[in-house]
Every structure is written in structure tokens, then in C-alpha cells.
């Protein structure tokens, strides 16, 4: 009855006031097995609700009793007891440490070898929640010998068990490279890669998360994941209907591509870039973020890879993200990625500038509503693109509304290009750029003044003096 009441959250407060913990504790020691099971189930539901109750469960010394009888009882009791351990362990690392201290790990690992898949699932879930908090707890779980048994659980036919085992391995591997190496040594990667073909969406989401946690730590681990032949199956996951599957698939590709240029090259050669760009186009919001970061990482390695991203039509997609997305961190990521693409050579900068992203970046940098991170990233991106950009029609708007520190770079680029290109010079005058240059006030002797002088030297005196009569006076004085 208590168990049924505990399914409703509003009843829990009432139950707590009625001092239900000590009652349940005595019921756990009852002779009749059904009463024990129901008491354990009620405890589990109570502990699941909030962490005060979970702490109360720990304080009333219920855990040692549970662990002791876990080894002996039938499977219903084992399931209920594992549920209690899971419910207690999920709230905080201290509670999970309390569970480890009373020796629950060994019994849970024994439960993993049980015949009943429900018991295995409950035990794996409890281990997952314990290992989730930090590296020491994960190490304790690994030391209890859970990893090979979890790999066996993955091979079982029940889908729910596979899901839980995959998520447990993912939570173990995410903390440190050594733990990830342990997971790989147990041979998990091959099985996980095979199961990517399974149609169940939640299972795929857990598998992709596990693989990305393994591959994020080092190059060797990433190479091992790649050797398990995940490409091109991962690309089909990018086309899945479920948002989480798409997000985790692009996270996996990002973690693989970020380590070395060779791995990025591999991703590009299998057509991963195109798939990721399509995926970005079909999602919204946070699902796009790993894909955007992946493009940035690939482009950052070398200019050939950046060129590969450009010809896969990545830049228009990134500029759409930049303008459409409401969240600042996604915009910052898009700005960073565009900066990485455009910073290599004038060709790359031209490809970025042609899509009219530079004004958007400038407005983001200047706007007071953008977060600091966004402002910093957009400024860096603008600077790195401007330093290579020789595409003058894109640079002209900058003359009008750029702040001084950016204006310096813009004028510098003009001063590099104009002396050599006569058509550009003519265009510059007709579009009113020369006039604008004269209006810029620069300190004499500064870099900006030098650039302005070099631009003025490209043109004959009469044109310059038309805009700025004082210069004519200086010239006269100079000639005297």
C-alpha cells in the first residue's frame, strides 16, 4: 500500500511526516517474501523522489540490510533492491559513495550474472548511476569487475538491457582516458559499432554517446573507434528522425575529427562533411551545435581541409546558422567556425566574404546584447578573415560602420590591394570609398595614417584634393 501511495509525489510528504522509513525498515526484515519485496519497492520510490529521502534511507542503516539480502533472495526482491540502490545513488556523489562503502558493488556485479534480464537491467542501471558522478566512483565500479559483464549484457537480445548497458559503459568511459581504455580493452567497441544498425532510436542514441565518450580522450582511442568501421553507418544515423540520435552522431564525428588532420581527412574522404552540413540544415537549436563545431575543427587543421569544407557548401549553411539562431553560444560557435575557414588564404577569405557574413559578424560584435564570449569570438573571426581578405566589395561597408580597431585592418587591406589593381582603384573612387578614407581621422605616425597615405599615393593629386582641400595646401607647402 505504501508502495502504491509512493507513486504519487504529493503523497510522499504525508508519508514522510508519518515516519514511514523506520516502518519500512522493519518490514524489510519480515518473513513473508512478498512483504519484503513491496517494502523494498516502496523504499525505492521514496528515495527516487528527492535526495532528502534518499539520505534518510542511508541514515536509517537500511543499505547494509538490503545488500546482505540481495545476495540470497529471489529475482523480484533483487530487482526491487537494485531499484533502491539506483534511486539512492543518483542524487549526489556522497550518497553514491555511501552505497560503495557498504559493499554494494560486489553484489550488484553478481546480479549482473543472473539469468533474469530484469535483474541484470536493474543492476546495470544502479551501476550506471553510481559511475556517473566522478572518476573515483567509476574506478570503483571498474575495479569491481563490472566492465566485462556489461559487455556481455550488450550482446543480450533484450533491447532495454542493451540500452542500459550501453549507457553504463558511456558513463564509465567519460571521465578519463584510462577508464575509456578499460572499456576498449574489454572489446566493447566492436559490439557497439555492430549495434549501430539496430532500428531502435534510444539504443542508437546511447551507443553513439558511448562511442563519442570513448573517442574524445585521445588520438589512439579515436583511431580504434574508427577502425571498428563506423563510417559510413554513422552517416545514416545523421539522417535519423530522432533529434538526439542526430546530435550524438554529429558529436561522435566531431570528437573523431578534432584530434589530428589525418582523422579529419578520413572524415572528409568518406563524405562526412556533406552529411554533417545536411544535418545542420535539417535541425534547429542545440542539435546543430556539435555539427557546427565539427566543421570548425575540420577547417582549423589545414587549408586543404578548409577548402574541402567550402566546396561542400558549408559556408552558406554556417552563415544561415549565424543569422537564424537565437542562442548566443550557437552563434559564437558558428562565428568561430567561419573564422577558422576564412583565415587561411585569400581564396578562403573571399569564399566567406562573398556570402555576406562579415556584416552579420560585425553587428554581432558591436551589439550590446551579445554575450562576452560571442563578442570575443566574432571579433577574432573578423580579424582573421580581414587579414586575408582581398575581396574589396565586401570590405567597403566596413569603412562606414566599423570601430577603429577593425577599421585599421580594413584600411590595411585596401592599401595592400589598391596599388596593384587599376580597376579596383576606379571602383573605389566611384563608390565613394576614397571620400570616406579622407574623412577618417588618424593620429599622425600611426599605422592607420600610413595606410591612408599609401592609398592616397595611388591616386593623382587632383582627385585627392577634390575631396580634401587641405591636402592641396600641404602639397603646395611641400613643394615650396
Amino acid at each position, binding site marked *: 500500500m505504501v508502495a502504491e501511495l509512493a507513486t504519487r509525489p504529493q503523497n510522499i510528504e504525508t508519508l514522510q511526516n508519518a515516519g514511514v522509513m523506520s516502518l519500512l525498515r522493519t518490514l524489510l526484515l519480515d518473513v513473508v517474501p512478498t512483504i519484503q519485496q513491496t517494502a523494498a519497492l516502496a523504499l525505492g520510490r521514496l528515495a527516487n523522489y528527492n535526495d532528502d529521502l534518499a539520505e534518510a534511507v542511508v541514515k536509517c542503516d537500511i543499505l547494509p540490510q538490503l545488500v546482505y539480502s540481495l545476495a540470497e533472495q529471489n529475482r523480484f526482491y533483487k530487482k526491487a533492491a537494485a531499484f533502491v540502490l539506483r534511486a539512492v545513488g543518483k542524487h549526489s556523489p556522497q550518497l553514491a559513495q555511501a552505497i560503495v562503502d557498504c559493499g554494494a558493488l560486489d553484489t550488484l556485479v553478481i546480479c549482473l550474472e543472473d539469468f533474469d534480464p530484469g535483474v541484470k537491467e536493474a543492476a546495470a542501471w544502479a551501476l550506471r548511476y553510481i559511475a556517473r558522478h566522478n572518476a573515483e566512483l567509476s574506478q570503483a565500479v571498474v575495479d569491481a569487475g563490472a566492465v566485462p559483464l556489461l559487455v556481455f549484457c550488450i550482446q543480450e537480445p533484450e533491447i532495454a538491457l542493451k540500452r542500459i548497458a550501453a549507457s553504463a559503459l558511456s558513463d564509465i568511459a567519460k571521465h578519463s582516458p584510462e577508464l575509456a581504455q578499460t572499456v576498449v580493452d574489454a572489446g566493447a567497441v566492436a559490439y557497439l559499432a555492430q549495434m549501430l544498425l539496430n532500428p531502435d532510436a534510444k539504443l542508437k542514441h546511447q551507443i553513439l554517446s558511448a562511442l563519442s565518450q570513448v573517442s574524445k580522450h585521445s588520438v589512439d582511442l579515436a583511431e580504434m573507434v574508427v577502425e571498428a568501421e563506423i563510417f559510413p553507418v554513422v552517416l545514416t544515423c545523421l*539522417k535519423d528522425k530522432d533529434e538526439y540520435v542526430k546530435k550524438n552522431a554529429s558529436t561522435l564525428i566531431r570528437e573523431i575529427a578534432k584530434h589530428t588532420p589525418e582523422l579529419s581527412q578520413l572524415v572528409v574522404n568518406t*563524405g562526412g562533411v556533406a*552529411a554533417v552540413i545536411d544535418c545542420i540544415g535539417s535541425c534547429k537549436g542545440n542539435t546543430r551545435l556539435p555539427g557546427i563545431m565539427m566543421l570548425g575543427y575540420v577547417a582549423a587543421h589545414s587549408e586543404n581541409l578548409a577548402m574541402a569544407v567550402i566546396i561542400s557548401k558549408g559556408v552558406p549553411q554556417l552563415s544561415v546558422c549565424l543569422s537564424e539562431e537565437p542562442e548566443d553560444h550557437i552563434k559564437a560557435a558558428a562565428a568561430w567556425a567561419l573564422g577558422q575557414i576564412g583565415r587561411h588564404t585569400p581564396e578562403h577569405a573571399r569564399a566567406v566574404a562573398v556570402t555576406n557574413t562579415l556584416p552579420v559578424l560585425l553587428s554581432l560584435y558591436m551589439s550590446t546584447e551579445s554575450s562576452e564570449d560571442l563578442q570575443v569570438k566574432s571579433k577574432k573571426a573578423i580579424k582573421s578573415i580581414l587579414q586575408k581578405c582581398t575581396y574589396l566589395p565586401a570590405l567597403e561597408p566596413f569603412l562606414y560602420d566599423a570601430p577603429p580597431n577593425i577599421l585599421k585592418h580594413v584600411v590595411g587591406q585596401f592599401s595592400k590591394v589598391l596599388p596593384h589593381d587599376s580597376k579596383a582603384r576606379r571602383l573605389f573612387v566611384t563608390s565613394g570609398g576614397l571620400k570616406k578614407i579622407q574623412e577618417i581621422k588618424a593620429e599622425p605616425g600611426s599605422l592607420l595614417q600610413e595606410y591612408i597615405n599609401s592609398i592616397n599615393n595611388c591616386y593623382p593629386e587632383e582627385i585627392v584634393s577634390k575631396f580634401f582641400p587641405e591636402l592641396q595646401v600641404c602639397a603646395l607647402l611641400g613643394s615650396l
Partner: protein
Amino acid sequence: PVLCFKGFSLDLGCSFSKYVRQSATVTVLILFSTVFLFFCCLLPKVAPMMNLYNAMAVRIQRRWRGYRVRKYLFNYYYLKEYLRVVSETNDAIRKALEEFAEMKEREEKKANLEREEKERDYQARKMHYLLSTKQIPGIYNSPFRKEPDPWELQLQKAKPLTHRRPKVKPKDSTSLNDWLACTSARSFPRSEILPPINRKQCQGPFRDITEVLEQRYKPLEPTLWVAEPTDELKLAREEFRREEWLRNVNDNMFLPFSSYHKNEKYIPSMHLSSKYCPISHKEQFRSENPKKWICDKDFQTVLPSFELFSKYGKLYSKAGQIV
């Protein structure tokens, strides 16, 4: 021309590998010295020829200038080709992924349609009694409509739904001859050809497979003690009892003593009990109307009752106490 040869040697010295550089430097030094001597002695006579050589040397140098950079550091044509191949791969992947997505959608739609079809079929089977008869048109076959509703046709096609009968489980009787009950092919291979094993081959020599199978699947040869049934006496007794039972009229044992019925609880009939408590006889038969009473006093017992049924059940025997 002397200067340009020197310049050529310096160029060689910077860009080629050490081995080549050394040998090139040596060759060029020799060449330089010969050329120097040659120019000092013979130059005035052979100036036009030298101009020709000069022009040829310039052309050769122009062709080979920056060769290493063009070929190895930044090979423009290779890069162009690579980018073309990458874009082709991208298009192929995009097309394949679109086809995959379409196929998935088609499968899902098909599954949805099948599910709906099954649902409709199930509903039709449940509602099949709503089918119209000759006399009475059903609800889907209204006489005011031109044609019957599509549900009418569905109902005509559907088979009437019957409740599932409880499945009778066949009693599993084990006898001595069924010891090979587990006959799955993988666990007990019967043929001479075994399924392929992908692991390392075990080292031989092996016995002949027919002998092995004969030994493995030798039929059971139980001894006489085991083979013959030993419970014949029990079976015969039960058989006899069954025959006797056939002749019984009443299965209840005859117990003539009244004490047997003492433990039975009286179950009052439903007609005589109300919702709240069993109605006493007094209430059932008597309706009291105080206005009609003649006097205030109740009935009095004038004559004692005689016990008609005092000896009931005890007349014949008291000794038999039935528990």
C-alpha cells in the same frame, strides 16, 4: 654568362638534397673553372655562340624554376583533382542518404497503413453483428443513401470474432524412451556433416564420425528392473476402485448420526433476510397494530409445550459421535 652560371650553381645548392647538392657543386666547380679558362682565352672569338648558349640556358632555367615547390609542396592540379573528387563523393553520399531517408519513410508509412488495416479489420470483426439482413437494413446501409457505407462492405468481408478458448496444454508425459527430448540440430548434430567452426582447428587424429555418432546416440538399454512397471498392484487397486465408484448413487458418505450435522452452519434463505439482518419470524409474520388490541397484556403461556422433537436424532443411538 659567367655570373649567371654561378647563380645557377647557387640555386642548385639551396634547393636540392645534400647528396645531390654536393655532387652538383663539384660538377659546377669543375664547369666553372673550365668556363673561366675558356672565357679568358677564347671568349672574344666565340661571343655569338655564347649568346646562343645563354639564351638556351635562360629558357631551361625558366622551365625548371620553382620545380620542387610546384611539384611537392603545393601541387595545384593535384589539389584541384582532390577537391573535385571530394565534391563528387559528397554528392554521392548526399544522394545515398536521401534515398535512405526516403526508404525509411516509405517503410514507416507502409507499417502505419498495415497497422490501420489490421485495426479496421479487428473493429469490423467485433462489429460484424451490425451487418444488414434481408429484412432489416443495418446502420451502415441506410435506405436513404445511394450506396452502402464502406464499412458495410468491410463487415461483409469480416469473419465473426470468437473469444479465445483457454488453450489446453498437452500433459507432458515422460517415458523412458524419450530421453533424447532435446533434439535441436545445433546441440545434437545427427548427420555426419557438422556445422562449420570458425575457430582454430583442434589437433587430430580423430575417430570416424559414424562411430562417434553411434556411440553418442546409442539408444537406452534399460535393465528389466527399470523397464518393467513395478506399480501394477497400485494400478490394479485404482482400477478396482473406479469400477466400484461407478455403482455409487451418492458420493456423500452415509452417516446416520445427528452429531454429524451439528457442525453445519445454518444458511438462511435470501427471501427471508433483509439487507441489514436476518428477519426474525416474529417480524415476518406479525404486523403489530396497537389500536386493534383488546387489552394491554401479551399472550400468556397456559399449557406447557410438549416436546415433539426432543428425541430427534437421539432416539436410536447416542454412542456414535461423529466428529
